[in-house]
Protein backbone atom coordinates (compact mmCIF):
# COMPACT_ATOMS: atom_id res chain seq x y z
CA UNK A 1 0.00 0.00 0.00
CA UNK A 2 1.41 3.47 -0.85
CA UNK A 3 2.19 5.88 2.00
CA UNK A 4 -0.99 7.24 3.53
CA UNK A 5 -0.87 9.48 6.62
CA UNK A 6 -2.23 7.80 9.73
CA UNK A 7 -5.43 9.41 11.13
CA UNK A 8 -4.89 11.43 14.29
CA UNK A 9 -6.82 10.30 17.39
CA UNK A 10 -10.45 11.46 16.99
CA UNK A 11 -9.84 13.04 13.57
CA UNK A 12 -12.77 13.47 11.23
CA UNK A 13 -12.82 11.69 7.89
CA UNK A 14 -12.95 14.92 5.86
CA UNK A 15 -9.85 16.24 7.63
CA UNK A 16 -7.94 13.02 7.01
CA UNK A 17 -9.03 12.91 3.36
CA UNK A 18 -7.73 16.42 2.91
CA UNK A 19 -4.39 15.50 4.46
CA UNK A 20 -4.16 12.48 2.18
CA UNK A 21 -4.75 14.73 -0.80
CA UNK A 22 -2.10 17.19 0.36
CA UNK A 23 0.35 14.33 0.71
CA UNK A 24 -0.45 13.30 -2.84
CA UNK A 25 -0.18 16.94 -3.93
CA UNK A 26 -3.73 17.01 -5.19
CA UNK A 27 -5.06 20.50 -4.43
CA UNK A 28 -8.04 20.66 -6.74
CA UNK A 29 -11.28 22.22 -5.79
CA UNK A 30 -13.61 19.70 -4.20
CA UNK A 31 -14.04 17.79 -1.02
CA UNK A 32 -12.91 14.63 -2.70
CA UNK A 33 -11.04 16.41 -5.46
CA UNK A 34 -12.59 17.05 -8.84
CA UNK A 35 -9.96 15.05 -10.66
CA UNK A 36 -10.81 12.02 -8.61
CA UNK A 37 -14.51 12.43 -9.30
CA UNK A 38 -13.94 13.06 -12.99
CA UNK A 39 -11.53 10.18 -13.34
CA UNK A 40 -14.36 7.81 -12.47
CA UNK A 41 -17.54 8.35 -14.41
CA UNK A 42 -20.50 8.99 -12.12
CA UNK A 43 -23.05 7.44 -14.39
CA UNK A 44 -26.02 6.77 -12.19
CA UNK A 45 -28.30 9.44 -10.77
CA UNK A 46 -27.89 7.99 -7.32
CA UNK A 47 -24.15 8.65 -7.47
CA UNK A 48 -24.71 12.23 -8.59
CA UNK A 49 -27.27 12.71 -5.83
CA UNK A 50 -24.84 11.21 -3.35
CA UNK A 51 -22.28 13.84 -4.31
CA UNK A 52 -24.72 16.67 -3.57
CA UNK A 53 -25.71 15.42 -0.14
CA UNK A 54 -22.37 13.91 0.75
CA UNK A 55 -21.22 14.47 4.32
CA UNK A 56 -17.51 13.65 4.32
CA UNK A 57 -17.45 13.03 8.08
CA UNK A 58 -20.18 10.42 8.40
CA UNK A 59 -21.16 9.01 4.98
CA UNK A 60 -18.90 6.00 5.04
CA UNK A 61 -21.20 4.07 2.76
CA UNK A 62 -21.28 6.76 0.11
CA UNK A 63 -20.03 5.69 -3.34
CA UNK A 64 -17.68 8.68 -3.21
CA UNK A 65 -15.73 7.14 -0.34
CA UNK A 66 -15.39 4.00 -2.43
CA UNK A 67 -13.99 6.09 -5.29
CA UNK A 68 -11.57 7.83 -2.92
CA UNK A 69 -10.35 4.48 -1.61
CA UNK A 70 -9.88 3.15 -5.12
CA UNK A 71 -7.94 6.17 -6.33
CA UNK A 72 -5.65 6.47 -3.31
CA UNK A 73 -5.23 2.74 -2.75
CA UNK A 74 -6.87 2.59 0.68
CA UNK A 75 -9.02 -0.34 1.76
CA UNK A 76 -12.58 0.25 2.96
CA UNK A 77 -11.87 -1.78 6.11
CA UNK A 78 -9.04 0.64 6.97
CA UNK A 79 -11.40 3.61 6.60
CA UNK A 80 -14.20 1.91 8.52
CA UNK A 81 -11.83 0.97 11.33
CA UNK A 82 -10.95 4.60 12.02
CA UNK A 83 -14.05 6.50 10.97
CA UNK A 84 -17.05 4.35 11.89
CA UNK A 85 -18.59 6.33 14.76
CA UNK A 86 -21.50 5.58 17.03
CA UNK A 87 -24.67 7.60 16.48
CA UNK A 88 -24.91 10.80 18.52
CA UNK A 89 -26.87 14.05 18.11
CA UNK A 90 -24.86 15.65 15.35
CA UNK A 91 -24.70 19.16 13.92
CA UNK A 92 -25.44 19.33 10.21
CA UNK A 93 -22.56 19.85 7.81
CA UNK A 94 -24.06 23.22 6.82
CA UNK A 95 -23.69 24.60 10.37
CA UNK A 96 -20.58 22.76 11.56
CA UNK A 97 -18.10 25.54 12.31
CA UNK A 98 -17.01 24.73 15.88
CA UNK A 99 -13.30 24.19 16.35
CA UNK A 100 -10.55 24.09 18.96
CA UNK A 101 -7.63 26.30 17.99
CA UNK A 102 -5.29 24.62 20.45
CA UNK A 103 -5.93 21.21 18.86
CA UNK A 104 -5.19 22.68 15.45
CA UNK A 105 -1.94 24.22 16.68
CA UNK A 106 -0.80 20.94 18.22
CA UNK A 107 -1.49 19.05 14.97
CA UNK A 108 0.40 21.70 12.98
CA UNK A 109 3.36 20.99 15.26
CA UNK A 110 3.11 17.22 14.93
CA UNK A 111 1.92 16.50 11.39
CA UNK A 112 2.37 19.89 9.72
CA UNK A 113 -1.30 20.63 9.01
CA UNK A 114 -4.32 21.58 11.12
CA UNK A 115 -6.86 18.83 11.60
CA UNK A 116 -10.49 18.75 12.70
CA UNK A 117 -12.09 16.33 15.13
CA UNK A 118 -15.34 14.50 14.72
CA UNK A 119 -16.33 15.39 18.33
CA UNK A 120 -16.67 19.03 17.23
CA UNK A 121 -19.68 17.95 15.20
CA UNK A 122 -21.52 16.57 18.23
CA UNK A 123 -24.08 18.92 19.78
CA UNK A 124 -23.60 17.58 23.31
CA UNK A 125 -19.84 18.05 23.45
CA UNK A 126 -19.13 21.79 23.15
CA UNK A 127 -15.99 21.47 25.28
CA UNK A 128 -12.72 20.22 23.81
CA UNK A 129 -12.03 16.88 25.50
CA UNK A 130 -8.26 17.39 25.18
CA UNK A 131 -7.85 20.98 26.35
CA UNK A 132 -11.02 21.46 28.41
CA UNK A 133 -11.84 24.75 26.70
CA UNK A 134 -15.05 25.88 25.03
CA UNK A 135 -14.89 25.43 21.26
CA UNK A 136 -14.72 28.53 19.06
CA UNK A 137 -17.12 29.26 16.21
CA UNK A 138 -16.06 30.29 12.74
CA UNK A 139 -18.39 32.23 10.41
CA UNK A 140 -21.05 30.12 8.74
CA UNK A 141 -19.62 31.07 5.32
CA UNK A 142 -16.78 28.61 5.83
CA UNK A 143 -19.18 25.67 5.64
CA UNK A 144 -18.87 23.72 2.46
CA UNK A 145 -15.27 24.70 1.75
CA UNK A 146 -13.18 21.71 0.79
CA UNK A 147 -10.34 22.94 3.01
CA UNK A 148 -12.48 24.29 5.84
CA UNK A 149 -10.01 23.33 8.60
CA UNK A 150 -7.12 25.14 6.95
CA UNK A 151 -9.26 28.21 6.20
CA UNK A 152 -10.54 28.42 9.78
CA UNK A 153 -7.01 28.06 11.13
CA UNK A 154 -5.84 30.90 8.89
CA UNK A 155 -8.87 33.05 9.81
CA UNK A 156 -8.33 32.53 13.53
CA UNK A 157 -4.65 33.39 13.29
CA UNK A 158 -5.07 36.60 11.32
CA UNK A 159 -8.58 38.03 11.59
CA UNK A 160 -9.12 40.73 14.26
CA UNK A 161 -12.61 39.37 14.99
CA UNK A 162 -11.15 35.99 15.73
CA UNK A 163 -8.38 37.47 17.84
CA UNK A 164 -11.02 39.12 20.04
CA UNK A 165 -12.36 35.63 20.72
CA UNK A 166 -9.39 35.18 23.00
CA UNK A 167 -11.32 37.25 25.60
CA UNK A 168 -13.02 34.02 26.34
CA UNK A 169 -9.85 32.81 27.99
CA UNK A 170 -10.43 35.19 30.91
CA UNK A 171 -10.56 33.64 34.39
CA UNK A 172 -14.36 33.49 34.98
CA UNK A 173 -14.93 32.19 31.46
CA UNK A 174 -12.48 29.42 32.18
CA UNK A 175 -14.40 28.64 35.36
CA UNK A 176 -17.57 28.23 33.31
CA UNK A 177 -15.70 26.04 30.83
CA UNK A 178 -14.39 23.80 33.60
CA UNK A 179 -17.85 23.39 35.16
CA UNK A 180 -19.43 22.70 31.78
CA UNK A 181 -16.60 20.25 31.06
CA UNK A 182 -17.44 18.46 34.29
CA UNK A 183 -21.08 18.11 33.22
CA UNK A 184 -19.96 16.90 29.79
CA UNK A 185 -17.67 14.30 31.37
CA UNK A 186 -20.44 13.09 33.70
CA UNK A 187 -22.78 12.74 30.74
CA UNK A 188 -20.17 10.87 28.70
CA UNK A 189 -19.44 8.51 31.62
CA UNK A 190 -23.15 7.74 32.02
CA UNK A 191 -23.38 7.16 28.30
CA UNK A 192 -20.43 4.77 28.31
CA UNK A 193 -21.92 2.76 31.15
CA UNK A 194 -25.23 2.34 29.35
CA UNK A 195 -25.94 -1.27 28.48
CA UNK A 196 -27.41 -0.86 25.02
CA UNK A 197 -27.45 1.52 22.07
CA UNK A 198 -31.14 2.23 22.73
CA UNK A 199 -30.36 3.38 26.28
CA UNK A 200 -27.50 5.50 24.98
CA UNK A 201 -29.86 7.10 22.52
CA UNK A 202 -32.31 7.87 25.32
CA UNK A 203 -29.56 9.40 27.46
CA UNK A 204 -28.61 11.58 24.48
CA UNK A 205 -32.26 12.52 24.04
CA UNK A 206 -32.58 13.45 27.71
CA UNK A 207 -29.54 15.72 27.71
CA UNK A 208 -30.46 17.19 24.36
CA UNK A 209 -33.97 18.03 25.60
CA UNK A 210 -32.56 19.83 28.63
CA UNK A 211 -30.16 21.71 26.40
CA UNK A 212 -32.93 22.63 23.96
CA UNK A 213 -35.12 24.03 26.72
CA UNK A 214 -32.27 25.97 28.28
CA UNK A 215 -31.35 27.51 24.94
CA UNK A 216 -34.81 28.96 24.39
CA UNK A 217 -35.27 32.75 24.68
CA UNK A 218 -36.91 32.45 28.14
CA UNK A 219 -33.52 31.43 29.55
CA UNK A 220 -31.45 33.95 27.62
CA UNK A 221 -30.90 36.03 30.77
CA UNK A 222 -28.27 33.45 31.74
CA UNK A 223 -26.22 34.02 28.60
CA UNK A 224 -23.76 36.76 27.70
CA UNK A 225 -23.53 38.49 24.37
CA UNK A 226 -20.53 36.53 23.16
CA UNK A 227 -22.53 33.29 23.45
CA UNK A 228 -24.51 34.48 20.42
CA UNK A 229 -21.79 35.91 18.18
CA UNK A 230 -22.38 37.61 14.87
CA UNK A 231 -21.01 34.56 13.07
CA UNK A 232 -24.27 32.66 13.73
CA UNK A 233 -26.99 32.41 11.08
CA UNK A 234 -28.99 35.66 10.94
CA UNK A 235 -32.42 34.44 12.02
CA UNK A 236 -31.14 32.38 14.93
CA UNK A 237 -33.52 32.71 17.93
CA UNK A 238 -35.57 35.45 16.30
CA UNK A 239 -38.84 36.12 18.17
CA UNK A 240 -40.80 35.71 14.91
CA UNK A 241 -39.75 32.10 14.59
CA UNK A 242 -41.91 29.10 15.29
CA UNK A 243 -41.55 27.88 18.86
CA UNK A 244 -41.24 24.24 17.84
CA UNK A 245 -38.69 24.84 15.09
CA UNK A 246 -36.63 26.94 17.52
CA UNK A 247 -36.89 24.29 20.22
CA UNK A 248 -35.84 21.40 18.01
CA UNK A 249 -33.46 22.98 15.55
CA UNK A 250 -31.60 25.88 17.16
CA UNK A 251 -29.50 23.61 19.33
CA UNK A 252 -27.85 22.45 16.11
CA UNK A 253 -27.30 25.98 14.81
CA UNK A 254 -26.19 27.91 17.84
CA UNK A 255 -22.63 28.53 18.99
CA UNK A 256 -20.53 26.17 21.06
CA UNK A 257 -20.36 28.89 23.75
CA UNK A 258 -24.14 28.90 24.12
CA UNK A 259 -24.23 25.12 24.19
CA UNK A 260 -21.56 25.10 26.91
CA UNK A 261 -23.60 27.54 29.04
CA UNK A 262 -26.74 25.44 28.56
CA UNK A 263 -24.77 22.35 29.58
CA UNK A 264 -23.68 24.21 32.71
CA UNK A 265 -27.34 25.10 33.48
CA UNK A 266 -28.34 21.48 32.89
CA UNK A 267 -25.65 20.53 35.42
CA UNK A 268 -27.32 22.81 37.97
CA UNK A 269 -30.72 21.19 37.33
CA UNK A 270 -29.23 17.72 37.68
CA UNK A 271 -27.42 18.62 40.88
CA UNK A 272 -23.97 18.04 39.39
CA UNK A 273 -22.99 21.66 40.13
CA UNK A 274 -23.66 23.12 43.55
CA UNK A 275 -24.68 26.66 44.49
CA UNK A 276 -21.24 27.70 45.65
CA UNK A 277 -19.53 26.66 42.42
CA UNK A 278 -22.20 28.29 40.27
CA UNK A 279 -22.05 31.50 42.33
CA UNK A 280 -18.47 32.10 41.19
CA UNK A 281 -19.76 32.83 37.71
CA UNK A 282 -21.70 35.88 38.86
CA UNK A 283 -18.64 37.94 37.92
CA UNK A 284 -19.20 37.32 34.19
CA UNK A 285 -22.98 37.53 34.32
CA UNK A 286 -24.74 39.07 37.29
CA UNK A 287 -27.95 37.28 36.35
CA UNK A 288 -26.37 33.84 36.11
CA UNK A 289 -28.38 31.10 37.82
CA UNK A 290 -26.90 29.60 40.96
CA UNK A 291 -29.65 27.24 42.06
CA UNK A 292 -32.16 24.98 40.27
CA UNK A 293 -34.92 27.29 41.53
CA UNK A 294 -33.51 30.16 39.42
CA UNK A 295 -33.44 28.01 36.30
CA UNK A 296 -36.98 26.69 36.77
CA UNK A 297 -38.24 30.23 37.37
CA UNK A 298 -36.82 31.27 34.00
CA UNK A 299 -38.31 28.28 32.21
CA UNK A 300 -41.72 28.98 33.76
CA UNK A 301 -41.80 32.31 31.92
CA UNK A 302 -42.43 30.42 28.69
CA UNK A 303 -46.05 29.24 28.62
CA UNK A 304 -46.24 25.57 27.87
CA UNK A 305 -42.51 24.98 28.21
CA UNK A 306 -42.70 22.96 31.43
CA UNK A 307 -45.45 20.73 30.04
CA UNK A 308 -43.53 20.07 26.85
CA UNK A 309 -40.28 19.55 28.72
CA UNK A 310 -41.88 16.98 31.01
CA UNK A 311 -43.31 15.06 28.05
CA UNK A 312 -39.98 14.99 26.27
CA UNK A 313 -37.97 14.06 29.36
CA UNK A 314 -40.43 11.30 30.28
CA UNK A 315 -40.03 9.86 26.81
CA UNK A 316 -36.28 9.57 27.41
CA UNK A 317 -36.47 8.20 30.94
CA UNK A 318 -33.80 5.64 31.79
CA UNK A 319 -32.37 4.13 34.96
CA UNK A 320 -29.48 6.57 34.62
CA UNK A 321 -31.36 9.80 33.96
CA UNK A 322 -35.03 10.32 34.76
CA UNK A 323 -37.39 12.98 36.04
CA UNK A 324 -36.34 12.12 39.58
CA UNK A 325 -32.74 13.04 38.72
CA UNK A 326 -33.73 16.70 38.51
CA UNK A 327 -33.47 18.94 41.56
CA UNK A 328 -36.28 21.07 43.00
CA UNK A 329 -38.73 20.18 40.21
CA UNK A 330 -41.76 22.47 39.76
CA UNK A 331 -44.87 21.77 41.83
CA UNK A 332 -46.99 20.73 38.87
CA UNK A 333 -44.56 17.91 38.09
CA UNK A 334 -44.89 16.28 41.52
Amino acid at each position, binding site marked *: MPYIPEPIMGESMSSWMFRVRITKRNHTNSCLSETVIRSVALCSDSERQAKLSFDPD*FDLDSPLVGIFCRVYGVTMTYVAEYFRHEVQPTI*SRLCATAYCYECMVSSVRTVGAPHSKVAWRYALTPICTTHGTVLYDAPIEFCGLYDITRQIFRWHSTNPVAIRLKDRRSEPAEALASLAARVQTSYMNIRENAVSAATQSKIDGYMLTLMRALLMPCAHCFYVKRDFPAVLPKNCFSTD*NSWYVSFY*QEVFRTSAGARATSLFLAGILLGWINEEEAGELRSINHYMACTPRHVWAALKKDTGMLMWLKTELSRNNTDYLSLSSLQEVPKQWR
Partner: protein
Amino acid sequence: MYTYLTPIYFRPGYTVLKEGARSASSITVCFVLDSKTGCILTWSCSLGYPEVDLYARALLLLRHFCLSSAQPSGDGYDRGSFYNSLLTPRVQIKRIVEKDKLLPALKWKTAPRKLTMLNERIFLDCFLRNLYEWPFEIRNTIENPYSLNESLFKRLITDSINRTNDEWRNEESTQKIN
Protein backbone atom coordinates in the same frame (compact mmCIF):
# COMPACT_ATOMS: atom_id res chain seq x y z
CA MET B 1 -62.30 -0.01 4.63
CA TYR B 2 -62.13 3.04 6.83
CA THR B 3 -64.94 3.83 9.27
CA TYR B 4 -64.12 7.32 10.48
CA LEU B 5 -61.82 9.69 8.70
CA THR B 6 -60.90 12.94 10.38
CA PRO B 7 -59.23 15.88 8.64
CA ILE B 8 -56.54 17.64 10.63
CA TYR B 9 -55.60 21.04 9.33
CA PHE B 10 -52.19 22.20 10.32
CA ARG B 11 -49.97 25.18 9.58
CA PRO B 12 -46.27 24.31 10.00
CA GLY B 13 -43.89 26.78 11.60
CA TYR B 14 -41.74 27.08 8.48
CA THR B 15 -42.37 28.54 5.06
CA VAL B 16 -42.04 26.56 1.86
CA LEU B 17 -40.53 27.73 -1.39
CA LYS B 18 -42.40 26.33 -4.37
CA GLU B 19 -40.27 25.51 -7.38
CA GLY B 20 -40.17 28.51 -9.67
CA ALA B 21 -41.65 30.87 -7.07
CA ARG B 22 -39.83 34.00 -5.96
CA SER B 23 -40.57 33.88 -2.28
CA ALA B 24 -41.44 31.26 0.27
CA SER B 25 -44.98 31.13 1.56
CA SER B 26 -46.70 29.91 4.67
CA ILE B 27 -48.86 26.90 3.87
CA THR B 28 -51.66 24.80 5.31
CA VAL B 29 -51.47 21.03 5.35
CA CYS B 30 -54.46 18.74 5.65
CA PHE B 31 -53.82 15.30 7.12
CA VAL B 32 -56.45 12.58 6.86
CA LEU B 33 -56.50 10.60 10.07
CA ASP B 34 -58.08 7.19 10.50
CA SER B 35 -59.80 7.67 13.84
CA LYS B 36 -60.03 3.97 14.47
CA THR B 37 -56.32 3.22 14.30
CA GLY B 38 -54.90 6.69 14.82
CA CYS B 39 -52.81 6.43 11.67
CA ILE B 40 -52.39 9.29 9.21
CA LEU B 41 -53.47 7.96 5.85
CA THR B 42 -52.77 10.79 3.41
CA TRP B 43 -52.11 14.48 3.26
CA SER B 44 -52.31 17.42 0.92
CA CYS B 45 -50.96 20.93 1.13
CA SER B 46 -52.01 24.33 -0.12
CA LEU B 47 -48.86 24.84 -2.14
CA GLY B 48 -50.35 26.47 -5.20
CA TYR B 49 -53.83 25.10 -4.52
CA PRO B 50 -56.84 26.67 -2.78
CA GLU B 51 -57.24 25.74 0.87
CA VAL B 52 -60.90 24.78 0.45
CA ASP B 53 -59.87 21.80 -1.70
CA LEU B 54 -57.39 20.35 0.74
CA TYR B 55 -59.57 17.66 2.27
CA ALA B 56 -61.04 16.66 -1.10
CA ARG B 57 -57.58 16.36 -2.62
CA ALA B 58 -56.33 14.35 0.33
CA LEU B 59 -59.30 11.98 0.04
CA LEU B 60 -58.70 11.63 -3.64
CA LEU B 61 -55.12 10.75 -2.96
CA LEU B 62 -56.30 8.19 -0.43
CA ARG B 63 -58.56 6.66 -3.04
CA HIS B 64 -55.70 6.53 -5.50
CA PHE B 65 -53.48 5.04 -2.82
CA CYS B 66 -56.03 2.35 -2.01
CA LEU B 67 -56.66 1.44 -5.62
CA SER B 68 -53.06 1.38 -6.75
CA SER B 69 -49.79 0.97 -4.97
CA ALA B 70 -48.73 4.58 -5.54
CA GLN B 71 -47.02 6.38 -2.70
CA PRO B 72 -48.60 9.54 -1.26
CA SER B 73 -46.84 12.51 -2.73
CA GLY B 74 -49.43 15.27 -2.53
CA ASP B 75 -49.14 15.92 -6.26
CA GLY B 76 -51.51 16.05 -9.15
CA TYR B 77 -54.78 16.35 -7.32
CA ASP B 78 -56.34 19.67 -8.08
CA ARG B 79 -60.00 20.63 -8.21
CA GLY B 80 -60.26 19.66 -11.89
CA SER B 81 -58.97 16.15 -11.41
CA PHE B 82 -61.27 15.73 -8.43
CA TYR B 83 -64.38 16.47 -10.43
CA ASN B 84 -63.09 14.51 -13.41
CA SER B 85 -62.64 11.50 -11.22
CA LEU B 86 -66.22 11.80 -9.98
CA LEU B 87 -67.33 11.26 -13.56
CA THR B 88 -65.28 8.16 -14.08
CA PRO B 89 -67.26 4.91 -14.13
CA ARG B 90 -65.45 3.64 -11.06
CA VAL B 91 -67.20 6.06 -8.73
CA GLN B 92 -70.46 6.48 -10.59
CA ILE B 93 -73.42 5.04 -8.71
CA LYS B 94 -75.37 2.66 -10.84
CA ARG B 95 -78.91 3.96 -11.00
CA ILE B 96 -80.68 0.78 -11.95
CA VAL B 97 -83.62 -0.94 -10.37
CA GLU B 98 -82.56 -4.24 -8.96
CA LYS B 99 -85.05 -7.01 -9.64
CA ASP B 100 -85.55 -10.50 -8.24
CA LYS B 101 -83.36 -9.82 -5.26
CA LEU B 102 -84.10 -9.93 -1.58
CA LEU B 103 -84.28 -6.46 -0.14
CA PRO B 104 -82.47 -5.64 3.00
CA ALA B 105 -84.52 -5.51 6.19
CA LEU B 106 -86.24 -2.23 6.81
CA LYS B 107 -85.22 -2.26 10.47
CA TRP B 108 -82.68 0.27 11.54
CA LYS B 109 -79.26 -1.13 12.18
CA THR B 110 -76.52 0.70 13.95
CA ALA B 111 -73.02 0.19 12.78
CA PRO B 112 -70.75 -1.36 15.35
CA ARG B 113 -68.93 1.51 16.92
CA LYS B 114 -65.84 0.28 18.59
CA LEU B 115 -63.45 3.11 18.25
CA THR B 116 -60.07 3.28 19.80
CA MET B 117 -60.35 6.48 21.73
CA LEU B 118 -57.57 8.74 20.61
CA ASN B 119 -55.93 10.68 23.34
CA GLU B 120 -55.61 13.95 21.51
CA ARG B 121 -52.88 15.39 23.69
CA ILE B 122 -50.65 12.32 23.40
CA PHE B 123 -51.31 12.12 19.68
CA LEU B 124 -50.53 15.79 19.20
CA ASP B 125 -47.29 15.51 21.18
CA CYS B 126 -46.22 12.55 19.07
CA PHE B 127 -47.25 14.28 15.87
CA LEU B 128 -45.52 17.58 16.64
CA ARG B 129 -42.34 15.89 17.76
CA ASN B 130 -42.09 13.86 14.59
CA LEU B 131 -42.91 16.87 12.48
CA TYR B 132 -40.16 19.02 13.92
CA GLU B 133 -37.50 16.62 15.16
CA TRP B 134 -35.85 15.74 11.90
CA PRO B 135 -33.54 12.78 11.39
CA PHE B 136 -29.90 13.58 10.76
CA GLU B 137 -30.05 12.56 7.08
CA ILE B 138 -32.68 15.23 6.41
CA ARG B 139 -31.31 17.85 8.78
CA ASN B 140 -27.92 17.50 7.14
CA THR B 141 -29.32 18.94 3.90
CA ILE B 142 -31.20 21.89 5.44
CA GLU B 143 -29.50 25.23 5.68
CA ASN B 144 -32.37 27.28 7.08
CA PRO B 145 -34.96 25.32 9.09
CA TYR B 146 -37.46 28.17 8.81
CA SER B 147 -37.66 28.02 5.02
CA LEU B 148 -37.65 24.76 3.12
CA ASN B 149 -37.86 23.97 -0.55
CA GLU B 150 -40.79 22.03 -1.96
CA SER B 151 -39.15 18.66 -2.51
CA LEU B 152 -37.54 18.68 0.91
CA PHE B 153 -40.81 19.67 2.54
CA LYS B 154 -42.63 16.76 0.90
CA ARG B 155 -39.90 14.36 1.94
CA LEU B 156 -40.05 15.71 5.47
CA ILE B 157 -43.82 15.38 5.77
CA THR B 158 -43.84 11.85 4.36
CA ASP B 159 -41.07 10.86 6.72
CA SER B 160 -42.79 12.38 9.75
CA ILE B 161 -46.08 10.63 8.86
CA ASN B 162 -44.29 7.30 8.66
CA ARG B 163 -42.60 7.86 12.01
CA THR B 164 -45.85 9.00 13.68
CA ASN B 165 -47.72 5.96 12.36
CA ASP B 166 -44.97 3.58 13.47
CA GLU B 167 -44.84 5.13 16.91
CA TRP B 168 -48.61 5.08 17.24
CA ARG B 169 -48.86 1.43 16.18
CA ASN B 170 -46.15 0.50 18.69
CA GLU B 171 -48.00 2.37 21.42
CA GLU B 172 -51.22 0.59 20.54
CA SER B 173 -49.60 -2.85 20.58
CA THR B 174 -47.97 -2.05 23.94
CA GLN B 175 -51.34 -1.06 25.37
CA LYS B 176 -52.88 -4.31 24.11
CA ILE B 177 -50.14 -6.36 25.76
CA ASN B 178 -50.64 -4.52 29.03
